């Protein structure tokens, strides 16, 4: 092979490699992130309502400013939707790797009657050691739920279940400044949840 031919060949190879790198790694960075959840424009900051954390401390959602808060309303008695969601959130944290250190996942109990702080702690930490459970006086939980547009109501169950709690099953993402930014549907995958949270981590 002549030197010229070899140079041309190398040139072509370099061009192909360059195009590959540009298409694979560079261009996607300039494309806007497509959210799997619904984007919310909220004017209200995270509430300064005193709640009871599963670690025994009194906390307010506002205390977590600086971190991205992933908020979920559920209860330990719930066998289907709540474990499914917490399990997905746990996988999403794993996907975020070290970045997950800047994320606080919180489950607020919509069943403070049955969910003691101790039971709640064991329940949420089972899914991920950094997850936090929150309960409190019904009036305090009510105020926080109302602020986030979360609906819940007790409904009479059978002799075995006693009662069940119907509740909004979406997951809320609050940015580092304390503003509600995103509502994730129950159907979202761990990958979609992680990608959406990642956007707010910057």
């Amino acid at each position, binding site marked *: 092979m002549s030197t010229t031919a070899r140079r041309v060949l190398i040139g072509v190879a370099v061009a192909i490699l360059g195009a590959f790198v540009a298409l694979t790694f560079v261009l996607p960075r300039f494309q806007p992130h497509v959210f799997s959840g619904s984007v919310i424009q909220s004017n209200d900051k995270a509430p300064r309502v005193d709640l009871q954390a599963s670690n025994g401390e009194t906390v307010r959602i506002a205390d977590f400013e600086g971190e991205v808060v992933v908020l979920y309303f559920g209860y330990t008695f*719930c066998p289907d939707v709540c474990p499914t969601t917490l399990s997905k959130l746990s996988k999403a944290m794993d996907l975020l790797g070290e970045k997950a250190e800047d994320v606080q996942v919180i489950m607020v109990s919509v069943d403070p009657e049955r969910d003691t702080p101790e039971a709640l702690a064991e329940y949420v930490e*089972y899914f991920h050691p950094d997850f936090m459970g929150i309960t409190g006086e019904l009036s305090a939980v009510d105020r926080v739920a109302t602020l986030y547009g979360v609906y819940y109501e007790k409904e009479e169950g059978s002799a075995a279940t006693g009662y069940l709690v119907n509740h909004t*099953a979406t997951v809320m993402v609050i940015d580092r400044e304390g503003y509600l930014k995103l*509502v994730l549907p*129950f159907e979202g995958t761990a990958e979609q949840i992680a990608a959406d949270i990642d956007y707010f981590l910057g």
Partner: protein
Amino acid sequence: MMKRITPVALALGLLAASCGGSGGIEVSDQWGRTSPKAAENGAFYLTLDNGGEADTLVAASTDACGAVELHTTVMTDGVMKMQMVEGGIDLPADGSVSLEPGGLHVMCIGKQVDFVAGEMIELTLDFAIADSQTIELEIRDE
């Protein structure tokens, strides 16, 4: 989720159809999710393939739970409502029904065993027409 029809399944299906469709009820994909001790309840999921006439899953029972109920989760505008399925879960003739997270499920009320990965649970399914079946299902991380 659609299940891909393999040639073998197709052949079996044709065979069953040619025999008058008395294929009975086959249970597959049965499992339960691992859960902490603090969770009083659990849920079991499975797929029922009914090769015969229309039937109904009327009840389920196991020693692993204080009580067992057939439930469904209904989502309306993001609000989750869990309800007992009155009269049982209908199984159409030559059709299949999947019990999956966020939908139909067998609710285990008052877990009597720890739902740890690998735990095997015997669950008896009672049908309106077909004979009862006792299946084994595995508790696993999902």
